[in-house]
């Protein structure tokens, strides 16, 4: 189950659709991530700049106001308690007005607290150590620093309380950046949501697009799968009319056209191949006839001898009507025999157009054996027939299949120079009809057996064999949707099996 799922995933990943979706997903992910990072970074800077600017405004206004208070106190317009009260109220008001202000501290020139929002912790005169405040008072310029106050992030804006070089101390305001962080956090969250939603929508569109794009390829592939044999190839013209291969202007249109063109070329090549096979078959047939010729000649010679004697007797000897009639009958019988032999040979040798008809395999085999008998005569070979009676008729090109059987039987006889047993067997097995041709000859070693179906491969001497017999036989059997198998043991014999599908 797990393997099946893995296989399906693997198949999807390597499919055009899968690759397209994966590539698009990776691109979307990379681009959205980079885009989001840029946006977040920009927003972060803007937020930070904004809070710094606000802090600067607070600090500048406070500086002006507090400097006035310092002057009034120095002039005696306000006493010290008034000043402290004022500073306390000022700080309280400031913090009430903006909740982001985490702390406000006013120090004198010695860095001692004059007022602090945390009255109880930072009483009047407490030593206050802060780097930002120290630098602001030293340089008489505002100083901004990012710090932590009570473990929370703040931006500290320190400013001196001065008029020109006359100084009264310094002021520091701590503005919480937690809201900025929260805002950035929310922004990040929003961007993540938007990215996820947009990526999902994009992927959905891409998936649909990929499916639409890959559809013509799948359809083309199913059309390709539909071409199973030579007959389907012959219908290539009709493919142009198929709705799945309707004309397109895009790259798939080009692919379809290329496919149809390739199919046409394949069909042409197939036709050429067929023609060549026919020619080779005919040539091979002639070779077989040549091999049969001596036996046939011998077979014709016998009745011909009888005819000659009968004619001589008829012409030279006086005989009664009965004897004459007997002679004429012998002549007639002999002529019939010769006629039969010649007819069989002609039948075997004639060029036939490929046409199939219902054929009884046993009859086909028997007919070939009659011809073969002419070839066997004089050899110490016993023919054993084991023909099954349960065979259906098969749609075959009888002439060609006869040639195959004959070719294999001649090979078997040639393998038994010193005599032997030729067993011809027919049978049925699992949707196939079988013809076995088994000899008890010298057999073949494995290296030869591997090559016997190759064209022009022969173990016979020059001029004895073309090397095309088995190659042509294999081609004919395959044209009928069958297979040809061989099994051989050296010095024990060889068995060829032709398996033809029951149609």
């Amino acid at each position: 189950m797990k393997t099946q799922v893995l296989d399906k995933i693997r198949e999807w990943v390597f499919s055009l659709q899968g690759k397209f979706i994966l590539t698009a997903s990776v691109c979307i992910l990379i681009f959205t991530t980079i885009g989001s990072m840029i946006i977040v970074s920009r927003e972060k800077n803007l937020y930070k700049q904004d809070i710094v600017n606000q802090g600067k405004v607070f600090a500048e206004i406070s500086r002006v106001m507090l400097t006035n208070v310092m002057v009034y106190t120095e002039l005696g317009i306000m006493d010290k308690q008034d000043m402290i009260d004022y500073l306390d109220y000022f700080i309280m008001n400031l913090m009430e007005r903006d909740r982001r202000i985490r702390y406000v501290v006013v120090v004198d020139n010695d860095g001692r607290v004059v007022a602090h929002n945390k009255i109880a912790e930072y009483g009047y005169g407490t030593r206050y150590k802060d780097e930002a405040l120290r630098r602001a008072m030293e340089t008489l310029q505002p100083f901004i620093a990012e710090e932590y106050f009570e473990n929370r992030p703040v931006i500290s804006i320190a400013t001196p309380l001065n008029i020109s070089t006359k100084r009264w101390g310094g002021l520091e305001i701590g503005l919480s950046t937690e809201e900025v962080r929260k805002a950035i956090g929310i922004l990040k969250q929003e961007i993540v949501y938007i990215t996820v939603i947009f990526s999902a929508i994009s992927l959905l569109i891409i998936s649909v697009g990929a499916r639409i794009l890959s559809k013509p390829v799948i359809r083309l592939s199913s059309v390709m799968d539909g071409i199973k044999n030579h007959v389907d190839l012959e219908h290539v013209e009709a493919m142009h009319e198929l709705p799945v291969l309707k004309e397109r202007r895009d790259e798939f249109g080009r692919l379809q056209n290329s496919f149809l063109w390739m199919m046409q070329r394949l069909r042409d090549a197939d036709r050429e191949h067929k023609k060549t096979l026919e020619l080779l078959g005919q040539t091979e047939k002639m070779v077989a006839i040549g091999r049969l010729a001596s036996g046939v000649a011998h077979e014709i010679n016998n009745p011909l001898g009888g005819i000659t004697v009968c004619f001589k007797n008829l012409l030279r000897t006086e005989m009664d009507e009965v004897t004459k009639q007997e002679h004429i009958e012998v002549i007639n019988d002999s002529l019939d025999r010769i006629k039969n032999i010649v007819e069989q040979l002609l039948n075997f040798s004639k060029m036939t157009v490929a046409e199939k008809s219902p054929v009884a395999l046993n009859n086909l085999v028997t007919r070939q054996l009659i011809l073969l008998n002419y070839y066997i005569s004089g050899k110490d070979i016993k023919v054993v027939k084991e023909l099954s009676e349960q065979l259906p008729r098969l749609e075959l090109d009888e002439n060609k299949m006869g040639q195959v059987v004959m070719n294999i039987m001649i090979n078997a006889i040639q393998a038994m120079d010193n005599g032997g047993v030729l067993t011809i067997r027919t049978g049925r097995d699992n949707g196939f009809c079988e013809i076995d041709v088994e000899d008890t000859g010298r057999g073949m070693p494995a290296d030869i057996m591997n090559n016997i179906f190759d064209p022009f491969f022969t173990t016979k001497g020059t001029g004895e064999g073309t090397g095309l017999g088995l190659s042509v036989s294999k081609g004919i059997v395959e044209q009928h949707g069958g297979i040809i198998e061989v099994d051989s043991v050296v010095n024990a014999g060889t068995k060829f099996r032709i398996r033809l599908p029951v149609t």
Partner: protein
Amino acid sequence: MSFRCLILFFLLVFVSNLDAKPARGEKAGEPLKKVVYFSAITLYHPIVMYQRYQPLMNYLTEHTPYRFELKLSQDYRDIIKFLRNGTVQVALLGGVTYLEAKKQFDLRPILKPLGHDGKPYYKSVFITREGNKEINTIADLKGKSIAFASKLSTSGNLAPLYHLYTKAGIGSGDRARYVNFKYHDSVAREVLRGNFDAGAVIDSVADRFKDRGLKTIDVTDPIPGLPIVVRGDASPELTAAIKKALLLLAYKNADHRKLMEKWDEEFKYGFAEATDSDYDRIREMIDYLRRKGVRIP
């Protein structure tokens, strides 16, 4: 008309427009209301006083035929001066301030604020730093430094002194140091800073500093509410208008409460009519302390 005259003309138009701008509570086109100056004892720093008392002025302006202007001063004595010379016509005083002023000229209390319990009283509270383990009761204040509000303050000076004498037997000689500050919250902050061991403030201020590191040691007996006074020669229309506008308010009424929530703690629960005899208790406390050798004011 020369160019300079033209500019002068525009400036005059601009300035007169500024003057004609209606105050809050007045509608444009209506005749200008008569201005009534209202003063109050400076319980807090003037900045806070303006923030907390201006809403009351707005309310009075909206609900009476007068325009009320808040006029503050640096301390309690100035307010008496303002009332005497007619600079202000109405004022929110403390009990002691009222009695002090009453001695000098004719003055009438007309209203007194209610407390959160609906009664026309408030209290004075003794406070110290939360971390101060030495001071837990009024008796612990013996020999300690104590901060008080103004010498004329009832809840910040008179009532706590009276309480110290009567409840703990602590007289002026039993205190290490005592200082009077102008405002009640100055007292609270000074205690918080650790400059004084303890302090005495009005209950509303003690309440406000409760979460900032101060604890309560003791609370005085109820003190008659701060009187809103008018000069003896104040027009009956003005008195009636103020009384009508303020007595109308009921804290229990949701609409009124919504408005009063923004007011100062001292008068946000409404008002009751006041009479001179309400402050007899203050007179008794002053007399008691005088007998003990403490002069108020």
